[in-house]
């Protein structure tokens, strides 16, 4: 028997929030992946919506923070509001 493919599971815990990655599981196809995900990751009403995505369909960057992949944003402090000095007495800024 060939092994069932691996799926990554994402759960939206309530309306208004993003789906968040919760783990993975093996399933024969998309439909059973969702059913397994429901049984495994939402036994206590942890979700209102589930995504199950084949792991080999995910393009992933290295999680390593030092990776040069993220270097382009490293020196652009002017993208943050704190870069700009505004006198304290200017309201609503």
């Amino acid at each position: 028997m060939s092994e069932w493919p691996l799926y990554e599971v994402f759960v939206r815990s309530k309306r208004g929030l993003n789906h968040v990655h919760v783990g993975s599981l093996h399933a024969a196809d998309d439909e059973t992946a969702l059913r397994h995900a429901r049984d495994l990751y939402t036994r206590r009403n942890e979700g209102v919506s589930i995504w199950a995505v084949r792991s080999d369909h995910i393009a992933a960057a290295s999680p390593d923070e030092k990776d040069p992949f993220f270097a382009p944003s490293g020196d652009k402090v002017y993208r943050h509001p704190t870069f700009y000095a505004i006198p304290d007495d200017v309201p609503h800024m």
Partner: protein
Amino acid sequence: MADLEEHFNHTIEKDRRVEPRDWMPDGYRATMVRQIAQHAHSEIIGMQPEGEWITRAPSLRRKAILLAKVQDEAGHGLYLYSAAETLGADRAELTAMLIEGRQKYSSIFNYPTLGYADVGVIGWLVDGAAICNQVPLCRSSYGPYARAMIRICKEESFHQRQGYELLMTMMRGTEAQRAMVQDAVNRWWWPSLMMFGPPDDASPNTARSMAWKIKRHTNDELRQRFVDMTVPQAEALGVTLPDPDLRWNPERGQHDFGAIDWSELKRVISGDGPCNARRLAVRRAAHENGAWVREAATAHARKTAHAHETAHAHETAPASEGAGRGVVA
């Protein structure tokens, strides 16, 4: 290489988490895979001692609770197998290693559940000891393991409380019921203390696991914490812990307790416990008897994918089969 190692050490030093695609020393990866796999196997085998009582639990309420608890143990096993896979372990291979006896699981599950009170005592003492062990693992240095432990610890709290409540109910019952509880406590107390593993001076890997922040406390520290937590719970319940040497030591601010029979732990770990053969036989049979389900689901998936392909021949073909790695966990 030196750079990678330095970066890894820096991550550990700064108390940051190691994530799946980070470089890590071979020893760290191997230790992590072994620990997570053994932990997963323990959850899976751990379904059996209590699972045997689902049909015999005395009320629908107790059956439903026990069923939910055993289902949780299955879930915990799966969270952990999922974490092991992020390190490159193969799920089918992990299952094979368990049923062929090539990887271990917690020795506690090789003891029999002789009466219904055992269900309560397992929840109270065995799950209590597991919680003691697992709470610090929520800060373990390997990200996917720590995240799985957070989820598991939240659910274990229900396990311990349902067990203690079951025992309180029995203690309010007849003399015979109280005797059942005391008998179960007598049998499970020492094996529960052994769950924390060998004493520190006989645990050669502890120092390295602590340096890598895989473990946060030594076996003896956690064992002591468990004893100190449990003594007042036993008093509230009205049972005696079967250790004549157990007493409060005001100088240490902790309880002293009697010597543990380490030869028993060694014997049970190496396969000679009361239930080792039965536990593995049941797991093997479940795996073999489930083969047709796995094959049928695979065949169905292939058939529907094929039908889909024929219906949409002009569109992109479906992805090829094969298990991916848990790259994003």
